[in-house]
């Protein structure tokens, strides 16, 4: 059992799963952190990205990895459209955060239902799948399927890229400022509208890209998104709402629990272990792993 716990195989599994959870949480954190919008349609953006990758591969026979910039652009475009049509005015009204959160919950819920049903109507609910990068690479005792390596690599690059962007660029710091304190950011002269637009574009783009990566290994259906919306919520709450670094940490932590704790106990205990850890951490730190305690 001990040697099995130290195996590269489990490490690889935890890395891939963690990167995915972190990526899914990232998008939700960007949108919530900057605008206090609870994106219940997050998983459905992921689903749209998965369909985009599926149709790209089916119609062009080219790697969906090549289509990632397009998929990201699609996600960003949807985000910007929603921002311009629905949210910009809401946010500019200066309503208290609780009101914005409540309204956004309803808006995104309606959006989620609409996206799912339109997709089901357009493509039928029949599951779709395709085969790509399914060669299995062996490194020592660790076997890795090509599409999972690709998912890990792409997700890893995006996560690293976003962290660098937030820390090193002015725009990234503006996003962080907006997340930290909305009014102060405005006073300091940050163009709040522009930063919000970029945040929602990035958030939706990352969801769509996550979906495209997942489409290589999972079946694609119009209703596949809900599971990832839940996962995203768990990740962002655990990491601290709106805390980007916390979300990434939480994503990997959950994956570690899911892989290693399950190895120690049993697969059946998966939900108890994950949600048990979730509840335990929140009892000890209600603001999440890296969240700031409420004043």
């Amino acid at each position, binding site marked *: 059992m001990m040697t099995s716990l130290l195996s590269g*195989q489990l490490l690889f599994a935890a890395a891939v799963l963690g990167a995915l959870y972190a990526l899914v949480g990232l998008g939700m954190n960007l949108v919530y952190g900057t605008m206090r919008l609870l994106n219940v349609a997050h998983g459905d953006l992921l689903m749209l990205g998965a369909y985009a990758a599926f149709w790209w591969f089916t119609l062009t026979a080219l790697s969906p990895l090549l289509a990632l910039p397009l998929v990201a652009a699609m996600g960003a475009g949807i985000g910007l459209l929603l921002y311009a049509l629905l949210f910009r005015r809401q946010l500019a009204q200066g309503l208290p955060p609780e009101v914005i959160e409540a309204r956004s919950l309803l808006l995104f819920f309606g959006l989620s239902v609409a996206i799912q049903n339109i997709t089901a109507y357009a493509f039928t609910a029949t*599951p779709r799948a395709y*085969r790509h990068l399914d060669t*299995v690479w062996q490194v020592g005792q660790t076997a890795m399927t090509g599409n999972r390596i690709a998912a890990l690599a792409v997700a890893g690059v995006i996560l690293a890229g976003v962290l660098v962007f937030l820390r090193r660029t002015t725009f990234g710091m503006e996003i962080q400022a907006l997340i930290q304190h909305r009014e102060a950011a405005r006073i300091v002269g940050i163009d709040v509208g522009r930063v919000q637009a970029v945040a929602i574009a990035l958030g939706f783009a990352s969801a769509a890209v996550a979906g495209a990566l997942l489409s290589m290994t999972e079946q694609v259906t119009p209703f596949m998104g809900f599971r990832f919306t839940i996962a995203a919520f768990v990740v962002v709450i655990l990491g601290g709402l709106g805390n980007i670094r916390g979300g990434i940490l939480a994503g990997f932590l959950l994956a570690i629990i899911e892989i290693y704790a399950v*190895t120690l106990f049993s697969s059946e205990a998966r939900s108890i272990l994950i949600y048990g850890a979730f509840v335990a951490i929140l009892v000890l730190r209600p603001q999440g792993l890296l969240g700031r305690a409420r004043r």
Partner: protein
Amino acid sequence: MLRRHLLAALAGTAALAGLAAPALANDPVRIGYTIARTGLFAAAAPSQEQAYTLWAEQVNAAGGLDVAGTMRPVEFVSYDDESDPAKAAQLYERLITSDNVDLLMAPWGTPHHLNVAGVVERYGFPMVGNTAASVLIREVQPGNIWFPTSAIPDRIGPELAAMLAGAGVQRVAILANVLPFSQENLQFLTPALEAAGIEIAMSENYPPDISDMTPLLTQVRDAAPDAVLALTYPADAFLYAGQARELGIDPRLTFMLIGPTIDAFGQAFGPAADGIVTLAHWSPEQAAWPRARPFFDAYVARFGQAPDYLDSALAYMSAEILQQAVATAGLDRDALRAAIAGGTFDTINGEVRFDGVQNAVTPTAFVQRQAGVMQLVWPPAIATAPLAMD
């Protein structure tokens, strides 16, 4: 909520419009059903609804449904039951009492069938079931519902054990989803394997929302079984197949409960899907069933994908049975009930005859993908190819 109903209504209208019937003089026969167009089962339901659509189009193209001598076009009245069995029951009541449909066809799924069985019994309205598979159907009062499937867990267990024993399998590993159908199968499989003298090296359950099976599969690999019996649902079937391949788990035989009969499964795994045994009692390869191949070809031509070897076949069979019963008995419910209960039907799955609620003819069977083609491999009486072991 309103948006959802609007979209469902739009979809329903489009479906009706799609049945572009040639100009026929007589009033249409209105057939009612609900199906899970949204919700948990929405990904599985198209395999059934598409079979219904194909059947109706074929009937109308051939001049209409033969109603005891009179040819009349077929028209569907359908609703989205949102994967909710209680809602399905309500909607069927509406179909019977408010929409006044002439005939009924079944919804998707075991819990839906069981709920609707109560409704059709109350109104004395005969309905041929299809995609229901649980020992619970044996407890349904015979009367107004029938189940053509032979994939019932208390038969699957013993038949699978017999097939494995016959193939010389001595040691198995079992992975089971905690969802009802998998657990019901596990309940009957375990004693059957023990009775056949097959060693169960490991038997583990996993939750339906599992995201990574690596810990489970390293256990399987260490157990070194001759055969792996993965009692999966579609989502985890994909996960299992991909990750088992990654970890190099390649036993002499792999059985997966639900998943490999879906077209997308073959698309996802290609040649790696070959050799996997799964649950189905129909294949277009069976030359003794002349209707089988034409159905397969027509479905592929119409929808651009293979039918689900279990659900689509069952749905189409139930339509054929209804069609043949109506041809002799017309639309009178008592006559129809007697015709279905006592008749012998010629379907894409060969002959079907009911004994109470159950199909007395079709055996519990398994299929195996061989070179991309789904072959019946058990029982020997209807097999189209021998079981291929690694």
